[in-house]
């Protein structure tokens, strides 16, 4: 099973294993990683699972989808070029070891 390393804004790390096909948001919620709310249940509709993809992983994880995900990130606080909604990252073996950094607070 692929693993994800969630890193909180204060540097605290959470390494979780997830089944292939699971989203990074679901992985965080299922493993009680703090700071990922996922209020909309994975529809790219609330931006409470905002993460920064570690630059080494950007190519594999991909950029935000322009129609729904990007507009939500545009309105999220502190969004950057490597911002994604974790609910829109489906985990595969190719993403094993993915590093996702979290903002200080979801808003």
């Amino acid at each position, binding site marked *: 099973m692929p693993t994800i390393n969630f890193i909180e804004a204060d540097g605290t790390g959470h390494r979780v294993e997830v089944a292939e096909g699971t989203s990074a948001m679901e992985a965080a919620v299922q493993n009680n990683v703090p700071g990922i*709310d*996922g*209020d*909309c*249940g994975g*529809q*790219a*509709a*609330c*931006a*409470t699972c905002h993460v920064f993809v570690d630059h080494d992983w950007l190519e594999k994880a991909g950029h935000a989808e322009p129609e*729904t995900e990007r*507009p*939500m990130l*545009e*309105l999220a*606080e502190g969004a950057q070029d490597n911002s994604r909604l974790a609910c829109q990252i489906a985990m595969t073996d190719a993403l094993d070891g993915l590093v996702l950094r979290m903002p*200080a*607070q979801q*808003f």
Partner: protein
Amino acid sequence: MDAQSSVSFDPHSIPIEDIDVSDPGLYQRDEHWRELFARLRKDDPVHYCAQSEYGPFWSITRYSDIMAVDTNHRVFSSDNATALDDARIVGEGDGAVPIPSFLQMDPPRHDQQRKAVSPAVAPANLVRLQDTMRQRTKKVLDSLPVGEEFDWVPAVSVELTILMLATLIDFPLEERAKLKRWSDVIVGFPGDGVVESWEQRNREMRELVDTFLRMKQEREQAEPGRDAISILAHSPDLRDMDLVEFVANVTLLIVGGNETTRNTMSGSILAFHDFPDEWEKLRRDPSLITSMVPEAIRWQSPVMYQSRRATEDIEFGGKTIRKGDKVAMWYISGNRDEEVIEKADRFIIDRDRPRQHLSFGFGIHRCLGNRLAEMQLRILWEEIMAKGWRRIEVTGKPEFGYSNTLRGLNTLPVRIHA
């Protein structure tokens, strides 16, 4: 079971095409709307109402359909379309005062203005309000006449939310009664018990406009502050915003930033009265406040609906919605959709995923003040639990507001049992 709706009502007694859920009386009497929405969700989830006081409109009643409309801002436009009653946005009569805030806009203007307002209610800015809020909450709760009957709404819900709003926009605390009045007037319309006529509403709205334009000027000349008016006045993105829009965004903060939280505060007291087992559950484990707060927000559904206008013909839920049609997303119905929320007609404070509710809306128009609302409710309930009261009993019939938009509690008689 909803304890509030004790009178049995057969929603099938009305032909389905004649169902009109926009009637504000349904919510003021607090009857029949639960049954009517349950029938629509089951038999006609995308429902056309050909005749209403506000003209024809579609009702979207299921959770997943509401999510689909709310997230499709290209086809379902907010441009002057968020209320079924156009007069709520553009006003009516001589000297009407329109309030076109960013809530009633589409991208890109929406995004620009929303981003400018956002820092005022962002978590970083809320931290500074937290201690003030807690001190005030303690003081308000200490002042309550334990053992006697009193009205919870003015004593607690109005007082706390107006104090918070005044702080948020740095409005003189001693004049905060004006904010409460304006808040009621902004959403008011003749016949609702708040305003008598459009002329009266327009007069009071102009007073509001004058006050906030004066405040804007003062803040512009002062150093940038952290209150919302200063943030708006100094925003480089909003330098070209016209004055009408400036005031409109202030009115959005006033209504969004206090009525909804006020009503959810009152609604949570009523919910615990109706579900005493949940009250005991919370007393045993106050850490459940984390999941109880979003559940109270779902239960209240303080904004009952928001509407949109279709920008093109679209097939939706087996119906054809035509370009130009008004479409109302009934959050209050989606929040009781059994397909998504188990035992949705019960107030349950320890749900697995309590944050999955529609009360804040979804998509680009999602409630900007949601973190502020949650913080205020959390602090109120932490301090209520710290009191160790045995019970807060609702001693009489609550009075609900005459509105199809904001689910308001105007009075809530209670007695605290120490």
